């Protein structure tokens, strides 16, 4: 499943996309993220019959991604994103 967490408002689209078929819930992104945006849960909330650990975006952060992810996204010389870099399965992508 391609899960898009985030929002659109007047200033743009702010979605983090998680490819749940590739994710094994290892939790490296959780450790890598300085904004505590990620969380590993025991069951995919959008696929109740899949009972394997999976990463989701913390619900309190979903409407604030533009700001939560801001520190990792300087306007110039942007380094690779820690969450994307930490993931061995290439699960995470950002829309902005």
């Amino acid at each position, binding site marked *: *499943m*391609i*899960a*898009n967490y985030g*929002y*659109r*408002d*007047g200033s743009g*689209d702010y*979605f983090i996309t998680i490819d749940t078929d590739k994710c094994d819930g290892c939790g490296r992104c959780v450790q890598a993220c300085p904004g505590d945006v990620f969380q590993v849960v025991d069951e995919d*909330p*959008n*696929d*109740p*019959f899949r009972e394997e650990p999976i990463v989701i975006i913390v619900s309190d952060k979903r*409407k604030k991604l533009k700001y939560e992810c801001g520190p990792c996204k300087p306007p110039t010389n942007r380094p690779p994103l820690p969450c994307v870099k930490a993931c061995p399965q290439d699960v995470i992508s950002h*829309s902005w």
Partner: protein
Amino acid sequence: MAEENTQEYWRWTESHWKNPDIRWEDAKIVTVGIDVGSVSSQAVVMTDGQLYAYSNMRTGSDSPESARNALNFGLEGTNMPESRIDYCIGTGYGRVNVPMADRSITEIACHARGAHFIYGPEVRTVLDVGGQDCKAIRCDEKGKVVNFLMNDKCAAGTGRGMEVFADLLSVPIIDVGERSFQVKEEPESVSSTCVVYAKTEATGLLRKGWQVNEVLAAYCSAMAHRIITLIERIGIEKEFAITGGLAKNRGVIERLMKEIGLEPMHTDWDTQIAGAVGAALFSYALVQKGKGRKK
């Protein structure tokens, strides 16, 4: 003394329905799904996976009470005692506040499953325009989610936005769609669907001499456009189904379908019950798997 105008143009009718061909007394498994949304709440009662009864009401300020009211309204006239319910799942924005629910499931999963039931297994893209959010879901032939996106940060282009607009222009909400087509030519869309600026937008156009119907048309088309840019992010695949209250507004839906060049699927069911139907179906599946309520 001048008479005060107390008509609430945004108000839509609450309803409930019972399947006359089913006797719940004969059912093996009775499951319930309760969808407490930001604007409306629904309760669906299923007997052995068949739709037996449902209700559709406005959500009040208290989620547990709204869930209770929806269930009572759904069971009205059925004589079914609540103890007969084998399993109940809560979904929607207020899903954690459904006291009679055995568990909760996200509205994404429930809407895909519900649309699959009310529109049939051909459905691949589900667009749900609810009271304060907009969900776009792609699902497979089993009604399982393969791609989804939800925008619940901004109410622009949602049902509540339409309610505010109907009220501003003193047009009953159920007439908005019809009246938006009673224009000589399609006007340009309004520049913003922002609910906060709806009044500025509408009065600006009326001052310029636009007819009310033209303003409605401009708003419907702006909403359609906004929704399309959102669903394009997950990709549109045939067959296309629309759930939620906005599916009842042909002003938005027809403009939307014209722009993406598809025909929407048709259903005789109330499109607002999709989430609760999905929850009731998940309940049924869980009971069948032996994961039901411990009695």
